[in-house]
């Protein structure tokens, strides 16, 4: 397990700080520990349909877990992760109970889980067995014991149905920010299309690792040229992503024949190495980095207290100046805790701005869709005839608008977190908590667009309205005729009856068409309203979660700082009054304690450099080491 070393380090640190009565620091380390333990690394496998995504997953785990067909495509996202025994679970949202399934604190609703035999999976997650996902599965989970998946690696086979720019594509987009890596799968028959390049560009902006996988190299003689062209396209588009060529067929053949040469030809070893080193490695590196940061910060705070005590004991004359400095620092750090602190303002204002902005953005997008749809209805004659097309168009547009809106929200939220962190450290060393920007599928709760059957205009209705018109006509003109002595039924009144009957019929038809059009427009508007309602609730919840996480994170940081300074202050003040023997004892003790902390510090540093592959940790360089800086300086500069 790659996480075992950081966990051991955290345990050691917990032991070391046990003698100091600092529950706040202990909680921080315990948080770090639990974060390490459930670290999952999500890899999204995306691409146009029929490019070999499911087969790629099968090749990676060397088992036919995802169903593969020549024709129909996967419909439900499939998550493949490590487990002790092979098992498959289908997951869906609980049966509809309106849009209020989310409780007020914004937690995602509980899912309904059904365990099934792996062999039956195909019947549930493919177009063939479950057309249009009538069973409403949200996703499927497959557990399988595999070394490849160690280290919390999770492969997500995304649906290819409809291609990248469809409703499903939009759902894939929305999953991007929560992924640790994205593999774009494209087969070697053709170079990248503009859609694929656009997708890569967007993926790159929100996801740390994006790689391109060129599949089916066993069938296409010119795959090397295609790979070269694709690399060229990537360069021109300014997307910095690695391109790996693989052949799932060869990989599967190599597993059957246990032929190592064939395996290396299939390109899978390189892909697995990429996943292990770059994706899992980087996630591991990130985990080590944040763990090291946590431990170092804790040590630092304890060391500051010890050092100021030491200084006060060693030179009682200067104790007063130390106390004065510390008091000042403590006052400043106390201010950080206050609600009126600057970072609080930044956070609150930022979230409020963000709320307003994304709401506006969402409404604007929906308005545009509604406008276009209404134009279409106005030009399209009877909306009943084009309703299927129109409603699926509107749904797709809405889904992709929501996805774009959501990506933007995530980006802005991350930026906001950085802004707030700047108040705490000028060097940008603050490791931010992982923002919980995942949202539920808001569109799941949106009620389907429905056009009421409305008034039928069948033969009997037509006959009736024609009759009504002609009756009035005959009566009217017949009565007029009686004035000049004609019978009630005469050629004129009959003619008028026919005319008015025809007119009545035409009027009714026009009226019904107009009503249908306005009903169609209303249905679309209602749907978009629903989308806005649900999505804005989702994104408000998400922002609230982000806000709460950031506030808790920074408040606890501020509190820790404050407590450390208070402790330093208290010990410095104590040192003024203590007896000479006591002073001597402490002076002898403190270097030992500091030494212990320094040892831990060194150990933690090796933790980072051990797993350091790409040298991604410039911010923990030795010049920040507390031993080099004056005793009380570093927490104080952190406040400025």
């Amino acid at each position, binding site marked *: 397990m790659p996480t075992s070393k950081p966990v051991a380090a955290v345990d050691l640190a917990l032991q070391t700080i046990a003698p100091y009565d600092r529950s706040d620091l202990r909680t921080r380390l315990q948080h770090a520990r639990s974060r390490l333990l459930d670290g999952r690394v999500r890899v999204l496998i995306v691409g146009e*349909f029929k490019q070999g995504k499911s087969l790629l997953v099968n090749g990676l785990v060397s088992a036919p877990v995802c169903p593969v067909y020549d024709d129909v495509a996967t419909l439900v996202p499939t998550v493949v992760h490590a487990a002790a025994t092979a098992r498959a679970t289908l997951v869906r949202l609980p049966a509809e109970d309106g849009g209020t399934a989310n409780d007020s604190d914004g937690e995602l609703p509980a899912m309904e889980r059904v365990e099934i035999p792996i062999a039956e999976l195909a019947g549930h997650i493919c177009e063939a067995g479950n057309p249009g996902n009538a069973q409403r599965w949200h996703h499927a989970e497959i557990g399988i014991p595999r070394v490849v998946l160690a280290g919390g690696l999770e492969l997500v086979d995304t649906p290819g149905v409809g*291609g990248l720019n469809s409703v499903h594509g939009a759902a894939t987009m929305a999953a991007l920010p929560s992924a640790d890596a994205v593999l774009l799968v494209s087969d070697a028959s053709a*170079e990248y299309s503009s*859609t694929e390049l656009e997708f890569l560009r967007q993926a790159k902006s929100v996801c740390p690792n994006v790689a391109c996988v060129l599949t089916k190299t066993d*069938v*296409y*003689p010119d795959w090397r040229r*295609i790979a070269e062209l694709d690399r060229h396209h990537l360069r021109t588009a300014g997307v910095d992503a690695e391109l790996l060529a693989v052949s799932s067929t060869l990989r599967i053949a190599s597993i059957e024949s246990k032929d190592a*040469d064939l395996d290396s030809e299939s390109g899978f070893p390189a892909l697995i190495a990429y996943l292990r080193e770059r994706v899992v490695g980087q996630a591991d590196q990130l985990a080590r980095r944040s763990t090291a940061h946590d431990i170092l910060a804790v040590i630092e705070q304890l060391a500051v207290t010890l050092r100021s005590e030491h200084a006060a004991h060693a030179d009682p004359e200067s104790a007063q100046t130390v106390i004065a400095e510390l008091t000042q620092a403590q006052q400043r750090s106390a201010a950080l805790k206050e609600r009126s602190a600057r970072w609080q303002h930044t956070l609150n204002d930022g979230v409020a701005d963000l709320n307003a902005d994304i709401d506006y953005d969402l409404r604007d997008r929906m308005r545009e869709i509604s406008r276009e749809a209404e134009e279409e209805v106005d030009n399209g004659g009877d909306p009943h005839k084009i309703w299927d097309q129109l409603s699926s168009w509107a749904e797709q547009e809405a889904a992709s608008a929501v996805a774009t809106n959501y990506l933007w929200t995530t980006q802005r939220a991350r930026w906001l977190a950085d802004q707030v962190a700047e108040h705490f450290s000028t060097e940008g060393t603050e490791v931010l908590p992982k923002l919980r920007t995942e949202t539920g599928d808001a569109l799941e709760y949106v009620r389907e667009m429905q056009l009421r059957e409305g008034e039928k205009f069948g033969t009997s209705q037509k006959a009736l309205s024609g009759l009504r018109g002609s009756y009035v006509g005959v009566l009217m003109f017949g009565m007029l005729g009686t004035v000049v002595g004609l019978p009630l039924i005469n050629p004129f009144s009959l003619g008028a009856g026919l005319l008015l009957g025809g007119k009545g019929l035409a009027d009714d038809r026009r009226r019904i068409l107009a009503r249908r059009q306005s009903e169609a427009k209303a249905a679309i508007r209602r749907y978009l309203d629903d989308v806005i309602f649900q999505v804005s609730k989702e994104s408000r919840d998400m922002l609230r979660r982000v806000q709460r996480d950031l506030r808790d994170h920074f408040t606890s940081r501020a509190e820790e700082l404050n407590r450390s300074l208070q402790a330093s202050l208290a010990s410095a003040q104590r040192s003024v009054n203590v007896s000479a023997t006591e002073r001597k004892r402490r002076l002898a003790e403190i270097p030992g304690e500091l030494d212990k902390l320094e040892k831990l510090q060194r150990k933690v540093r090796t933790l980072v450099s051990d797993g350091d592959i790409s040298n991604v940790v410039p911010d923990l360089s030795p010049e920040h080491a507390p031993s080099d800086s004056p005793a009380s300086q570093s927490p104080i500069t952190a406040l400025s």
Partner: protein
Amino acid sequence: MTGAAQLNGAVRGLLRLAAKSFADQPEIAHQLDEQLRRLDQPLRVAIAGKVKAGKSTLLNALVGEQVAATDSAECTRVVTWYQDGPAPAVVMYPQVGAPRPLPVQRHDGALVIDMQATAAEEVERLLVDWPSQSLREMTLIDTPGIASTSAQATHRTVTFLTPADEAVTEADAVVYLMRHLHATDAQFLESFRDQAVSQASSANTVAVLSRADEVGGGRVDAMSSARMIANRYRTEPALRGLCQTVVPVSGLLALTGRTLRRAEFAALTELARLPRAESDAALLSVDRFTSSGTAEPSRLSARAADDIVSAQTRRRLLDRLGLFGIRLSVTLIRQGTDSPAALAGELLRRSGVYELTEVLRTLFTSRRDLLKARSALLLVENALTHKDLHDSARKALAAEIERIVAGAHELTELRLLSAIRSGEITLPDGQAAEAERLLGGSGVSTAVRLGVPADSEREALRHAGMHLLGQWQTRAESPLSGRANAYVCRAVARSCEGMLVALSATETHSDAGSPAKQS
């Protein structure tokens, strides 16, 4: 049919009249003139589709020679016309300036067009004259792929096939290639539907499931798998309204089948002689098949293959046939296909190109006059919106168009066909299929329309015709039919009448109808 000839004459008159009205607008007059000449030319069939769908390969397969350049990278960047001519010639039409002849170069049997450093953006189109039997029936137009990485190439195709307003599309019919039914494909097909005059949308479009040999990674049963996919697409409501039918075709297999060389057959025979296990191992992947074999001692199989067929030959075979083609050929030879001609025939049969040419023949070439007339009517109708046209002339032209459209039952047939297919008009179950067939949805020959065997006696044809006529007349008069449905039923009955009239007219001549020729 005589109706089509009459229609042709009427359209000719209309075009002349329009040309007169636009005498002071040389540009439009020229267009109309051009259209008039077009009526006598072969049908223009554009081959369209997404980038890398295999358009140029299919065009080559239809012509039977390497006239369009093919490459694994995006390759066709200019709209290129291929028409029948006495001798090979290439002419470039730049966006500005006079047409320029280009030298005809052949490299390894393939035509190479050198645009002489002219950028693709500056060229409106290329015109290639090529003596070929297949081009005598229809002029083929190769287009750059849509959804290409180069936005301009996409733009060129889209403007060519669906011009913004002014001009009318230059193609009379479209063969749309797709590898899978993709959102972009449906969108494009939809935009190709045209409005106005004939309102026949799907009538002039056929979809092709291209590169069918690559389905499922080139397994030996790839073509039958492709056939099943095509069957499914054919019944897909989204696609039904957009095209006439879907045919799976492997362009590469068809082209090689038409041009198979003796040396290639010999090499394939050698491969087939290898023990099955060895040839299977060599055919596992393209790299294994082409690797020289000496680099790594572990690749025994590849080395064995190398002894008998050189690496260079194998590479060429791969380009010509693809992995599927080689697998198929080796299997066929093992099963007893023993001559180049027999293998070529088998490849052609399996490539699906026969089905495609048959579909093109029944749906397009036999309707040539009709489709041409339709294009012409569209052009004139578009010209009516021109602001400098006199009101009197406009009225006269509009009336003439109306007269032609109302009088041409063939146009009505086309319009109704697509209305039924797109679901605009819904007929009761069972009636829709029959109506489509009678309106000429699966072919215009009398036997096909009546749904009787192609070699039926005239008497049998007439009998079937009378029976159907009676049925549809009853339906048309049934008070339960809605107005639209009654209209369709009357039109179908009219089609039946037309066929019966044609049958009795030919009675005095030698033979009836035009039953489907050999396939």
